[in-house]
């Protein structure tokens, strides 16, 4: 209880400070939190702003596309490197090296190749999102206790059965963590791609508002996007907790 009270107090304090600091300053640069709800309600009537609905829908589609591809690629690569010892030994260090590169360096090349449309955003989302998935598959395979596999084999289970009934459940907790991180990164990838250069999507609208110095609208959009991402991640966390409880 004490903890919750403190948390609430901090939240209120932060909002209060933000409000107090921004009040006397130029509203074009500094948005007050109290101005946000009004801006939110008025947004749909602002003529300059592009229609939000279709942009939001487009972004959601891009995220879905990116994530599905990231999961497919991530799982495939993860199992390939994890189950085939030699292949893993050769290519995993290369993957680790790739992980050391700040992902945004790929984006200009992707933009060059795929253009400014959705494809480059999806590609970037895949590039970001598939990493945690591959890594979690590799980690998951590694931490399957060898004794479990031995027990199953000694009971006469065939390789496919061992995989399905022993390895997958044992890996579930680790993998779901990676799948969750992959989702978060796919979202970030799509958003970054849109903000850095696009003609449609939430990022585009944010850029648009920012470009026209419509700071209040930009702030509302940013806050909404942030809340949406957090909500998505919280949902992911709940799923992860569920899987962990089941997988033991």
């Amino acid at each position, binding site marked *: 209880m*004490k*903890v919750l009270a*403190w*948390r609430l107090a*901090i939240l209120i304090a932060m909002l209060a400070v933000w409000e107090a600091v921004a009040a006397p300053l130029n509203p074009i*640069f*500094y948005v007050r939190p109290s101005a946000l709800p009004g801006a939110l309600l008025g947004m749909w009537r602002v003529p300059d702003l592009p229609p939000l609905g279709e942009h939001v829908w487009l972004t959601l589609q891009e995220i879905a596309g990116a994530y599905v591809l990231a999961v497919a690629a991530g799982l495939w690569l993860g199992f390939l490197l994890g189950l085939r010892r*030699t292949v893993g*030994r*050769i*290519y995993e*260090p*290369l993957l680790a*090296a790739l992980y*050391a*590169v*700040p*992902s*945004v*360096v*790929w*984006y*200009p*090349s992707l*933009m*060059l*190749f795929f253009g400014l449309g959705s494809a480059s955003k999806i590609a970037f989302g895949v590039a970001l999102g598939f990493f945690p998935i591959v890594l979690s598959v590799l980690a998951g395979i590694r931490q399957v206790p060898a004794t479990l596999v031995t027990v199953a084999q000694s009971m006469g289970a065939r390789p496919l059965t061992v995989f399905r009934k022993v390895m997958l459940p044992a890996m579930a907790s680790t993998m779901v963590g990676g799948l969750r991180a992959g989702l*978060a990164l796919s*979202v*970030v990838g799509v*958003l*970054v791609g849109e*903000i*850095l*250069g696009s003609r449609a999507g939430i990022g585009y609208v*944010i*850029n648009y508002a*920012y470009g026209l*110095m419509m*700071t209040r609208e*930009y*702030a509302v959009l*940013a806050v909404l*996007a*942030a809340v949406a*991402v*957090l909500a998505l*991640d919280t949902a992911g966390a709940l799923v992860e907790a569920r899987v962990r409880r089941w997988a033991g």
Partner: protein
Amino acid sequence: MGRLAVLACQVASLAVVVLAWHVAVRTGLADPLFVPAPGAVAAALGSTAREALPRLGDTLLKTLLGYALAVGLGVAGGLLLGSRRLVHAVAMPYVVAAYGVPKILVLPWIVLILGLGTSTAVLTATLFSVFPILVMVAAGVRDVDPTLVTAAVSMGATRGQVSRKVLLPAVLPSVLAGMRVGIVFAMLGVLLAEMFAGTRGMGFLMQRMAMAFKASELFAATLIVSILSIVVVLSLEHLNQRLSRWR
């Protein structure tokens, strides 16, 4: 498979990829406007490197500044967060939330206030890299084996002695791990800021090359930045290994 054999396979695989790439461009499978031939990229390396060098220096400088700030804040914050139960319980959801929100959303506002210069890039770098460091250090503090603290206290250690002689060395691996992750994020932040709204630096250069369809130069630049960051991270990793021989 011996280490040499593994290395040989890695080199061979890379060679095969480059060859396939070359063939694809040659036979027109890939449009040279979008996908430059490996030969063209190699040729462009020289000129790109010369153009890139000052910009790389600029990017690196901003990275290091932002990184230093993030390490200072992250380690201090992490130590505080990890050692006090109440602080940890109260603040952790906010830290996790801040970590989970895509920081790019704040970038336009930072540019609005601070402009297109160095401070924007440095602030972005700090923002991106402080969170992983904070979280990892806090976890490291909480993971310290309480028996070690008990042992020290039973031998008469004062609070200061416990902090210096037990907590600090125990937490060091987590700090180093956080720092290793942090440098990549710091570089990411700087490049992102430069791509979004910069006039100097590698990010800006690469973005400009993309817009001008200078494919060979862009690939060359991407290669240069990639190799640089791999080298930086590998060195940090090596340092990490040296300092953690006891693990």
